[in-house]
């Protein structure tokens, strides 16, 4: 417990957290500070490019083994199973309709790549390494949750399925969405070009990485703060509790999976983080197409306004402490 507290405290005064807090506070104070949409997208491309490439280069350095395939499989299963847990919890804890609950559930089965990046950077500061292919696991966990949620809706309410739901176009959009393609593409290119490739572009993707992450989290803070400010009336205690409880539950499943797979300390911690995190890019877009009746304010506020800050500040140090305790890392 002490360890967790001290880790949390240390985590809380890292620049990336503080810039997130700055953005959050600025949004609540109604400052007009803002990051242009194109710059925010550019930074997100950069982060995906860098994290994918570094993952691939690290796999190239350490070789591939069977664990890769099992880890990806575990990720897919987690992503598919977590929405069911989330759905039941939401129906019990909150007054959400089946459609709203399913839409929220999809977000919690899927993952947030920035949370993953933040966790990786905490690992790095702690001097821990992790399996490079966790990037591929992250990519694999994006989509299954969406299918689970649509299945939940179809079951709960046959009517809501008509005229919408999953079609071939949507499936392609989900599987080939820009973030996944760039992440996996960079991962593969990093794997092909290996350390030699990494050296060529290290002063672009390694050294300035932390700084870009700070600016990006400033923007995340602004967007999350603005969303929370405008939608705080939605945040009934039940919803709020879900936003904190669900990542903890997710991380437990990720913890189990990580230990079963025999991952390193860092790997277990990242698996926990992935399971605990909630999507705020890919899944919202898919939900607007497939379940337009679901209220976007609910899922965005929960995912971006509650769970993301929770993971960033408290979750990540907790997951790290647990992973360390269990693996002796």
């Amino acid at each position, binding site marked *: 417990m002490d360890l967790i507290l001290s880790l949390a405290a240390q985590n809380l005064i890292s620049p990336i957290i503080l810039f997130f807090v700055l953005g959050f506070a600025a949004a609540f104070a109604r400052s007009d500070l803002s990051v242009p949409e194109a710059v925010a997208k550019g930074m997100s491309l950069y982060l995906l490019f860098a994290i994918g490439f570094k993952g691939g280069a690290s796999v190239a350095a350490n070789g591939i083994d069977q664990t890769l395939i099992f880890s990806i499989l575990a990720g897919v299963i987690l992503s598919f199973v977590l929405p069911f847990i989330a759905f039941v919890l939401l129906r019990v804890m909150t007054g959400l309709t089946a459609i709203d609950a399913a839409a929220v559930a999809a977000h919690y089965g899927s993952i947030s790549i920035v949370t993953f990046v933040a966790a990786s950077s905490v690992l790095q500061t702690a001097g821990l390494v992790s399996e490079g292919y966790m990037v591929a696991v992250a990519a694999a966990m994006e989509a299954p949750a969406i299918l689970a949620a649509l299945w939940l809706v179809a079951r709960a309410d046959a009517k809501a399925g008509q005229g919408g739901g999953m079609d071939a176009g949507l499936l392609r959009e989900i599987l080939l969405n820009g973030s996944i393609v760039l992440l996996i593409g960079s991962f593969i290119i990093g794997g092909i070009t290996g350390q030699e490739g990494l050296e060529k572009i290290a002063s672009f993707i390694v050294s300035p990485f932390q700084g870009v992450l700070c600016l990006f989290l400033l923007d995340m803070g602004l967007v999350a703060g603005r969303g929370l400010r405008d939608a705080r009336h939605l945040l009934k205690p039940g919803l709020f509790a879900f936003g904190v409880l669900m990542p903890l539950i997710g991380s437990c499943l990720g913890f189990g999976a990580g230990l079963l797979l025999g991952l390193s300390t860092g790997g277990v911690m990242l698996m926990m983080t992935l399971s605990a995190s909630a999507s705020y890019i890919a899944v919202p*877009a898919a939900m607007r197409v497939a379940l337009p009746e679901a209220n*976007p304010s609910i899922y965005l506020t929960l995912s971006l306004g509650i769970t993301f800050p929770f993971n960033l500040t408290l979750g990540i140090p907790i997951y790290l402490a647990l992973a360390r305790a269990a693996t002796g890392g």
Partner: protein
Amino acid sequence: METHKAKRVEITIEAVMETRLTDALVKAGVTGFTILPVLGGSGRSGQWSREGQVSRAGGMINVACIIRPEKLEALLKAAFTVVERHIGVVSVTDCEVLRAERF
């Protein structure tokens, strides 16, 4: 200069629905359209702005089509099928165009 009567249809719709809408328009015989970016807005589903956004989920676009009056009904039907379950606005204005052979 000689101008010809036409209809201008403007559809404000979520960005994620862009290709679905334009595909439907093309199927309905629309020969051209122009897409304008939207910075933000407000409606029954609340206020929103594109600032700092990374996701396409939150944004909207504005699709403007100029068509011959006789094509209006087909266009509105096509647009309505896409817009039906979604947030967004469809408006029609009378206008005059140069070079009517283009429409």
